[in-house]
């Protein structure tokens, strides 16, 4: 059967993609940021996941105000990097995993998580920046991807509790897929940041550190944090962090931390990264 073998949390700051695409990743400003992902790059090259379920948000790219799905799952064969207003990122086309994606869609809907199914979905920096951070700049991405877009632009985003429980439903779906697949789930966005208004630039290291800690020590308590706490303490855009709870829910009740990285700033944002293992993980 398919198994979820690891969860990754990772920010998806667009400036990181721009730095890579424009060969500025060796600038002193960016060196510490990219160095923070070297360990994960080496690790994931050993792990060789077959499929990544990549939880991210669209930033007014494929979804405008015309349609605002709370959870949208990409079931297509492939996903084009989107033109976000200055031409698409020059990164490989993202290859989908439609068999597993459709299985998850049907499974979670019958499990009472009524998602939107997307057969056409251009993916923006929210999805492609984490890919670049984990895999660098290959000719083709070494993994198939199931995009899971979560609305965090139009208030309110789904609650942390809903996200954690949805992650649990995704785990049940993956574990009922007959093919032997090594599946990872990534939660992206965050950490603390605010991009709008006179309070733009807000960073809260204490909040971010506690959030990373509680992913293993107290995920259920963390999932009960109300939206106002994210907005107040982690910035209006820091509320993207609810997406990490989908990842966490999909790892089962207990998980252990393999490693983490934290860096301020990438442009306007605190960059957080964590790698988690489900407690029931057994070496293949």
């Amino acid at each position, binding site marked *: 059967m398919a198994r979820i073998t690891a969860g990754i949390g990772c920010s998806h700051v*667009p*400036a990181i993609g721009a730095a890579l695409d424009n060969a500025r990743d060796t600038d002193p400003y960016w060196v510490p940021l990219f160095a923070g992902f070297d360990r994960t790059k080496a690790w994931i090259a050993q792990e060789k996941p077959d499929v990544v379920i990549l939880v991210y948000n669209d*930033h*007014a*790219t494929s979804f*405008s*105000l*015309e349609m605002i799905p709370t959870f949208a799952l990409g079931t297509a064969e492939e996903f084009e990097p989107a*033109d*976000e*207003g*200055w031409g698409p990122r020059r990164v490989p086309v993202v290859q989908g995993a439609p068999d597993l994606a459709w299985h998850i869609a049907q499974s979670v809907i019958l499990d009472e998580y009524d998602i939107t199914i997307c057969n056409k979905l251009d993916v923006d920096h929210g999805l492609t920046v984490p890919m670049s951070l984990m895999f660098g700049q290959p000719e083709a991405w070494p993994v198939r991807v199931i995009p899971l877009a979560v609305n965090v*632009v*139009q*208030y*309110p985003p789904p609650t942390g509790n809903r996200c954690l429980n949805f992650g649990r439903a995704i785990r049940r779906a993956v574990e009922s897929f007959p093919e032997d697949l090594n599946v990872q789930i990534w939660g992206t966005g965050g950490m*603390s940041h*605010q*991009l*709008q*208004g*006179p*309070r*733009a*630039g*807000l*960073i*809260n*290291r*204490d*909040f*971010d*550190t*506690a*959030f990373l800690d*509680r992913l293993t020590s107290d995920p259920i308590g*963390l999932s009960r*944090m109300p*939206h*106002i*706490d994210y*907005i*107040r*303490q*982690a910035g*209006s*855009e820091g509320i993207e962090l609810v997406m990490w709870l989908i990842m966490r829910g999909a790892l089962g009740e207990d998980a252990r931390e393999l490693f983490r990285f934290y860096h*301020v*700033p990438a*442009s*306007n944002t*605190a960059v957080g990264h964590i790698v988690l293992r489900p407690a029931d993980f057994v070496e293949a």
Partner: protein
Amino acid sequence: MPAEKDYDDVPGTTVFDAERSRAGYHLNQFCMSLMKAENRARFKADEEAYLDGWKLTPAQRAAVLARDYNAMIANGGNIYFLSKIGATDGKSFQYLAALMTGTTQEEYAAMMLAGGRPAAGNTSKKAPSAGAGEA
């Protein structure tokens, strides 16, 4: 649904809720149109004429023409949509952020390098001296 918008207590912050989304629908959809190169060219060639094609309020229109991002947000704009105007103008996001915070881009970049705007003292209008909270 709480009658009071608890998030309106957060200083310098406008949460993009239902009311603001409804008020800003046409403004944000105008921004969305700038995703296409031909529309960016038409907008740059004649901003007034391009804006005539969108049902903006006088306040929204004036804010766009003045590139007053805080005024656009006050009139229903969402930053992810508004940033497409900045991209059309060839401006970085840090430029927009500095503009919204009333500092120079150099000062803003220096603040970020020094760890960003602290949460302590910046989390509540009612309790301006509140410290930084944890998750």
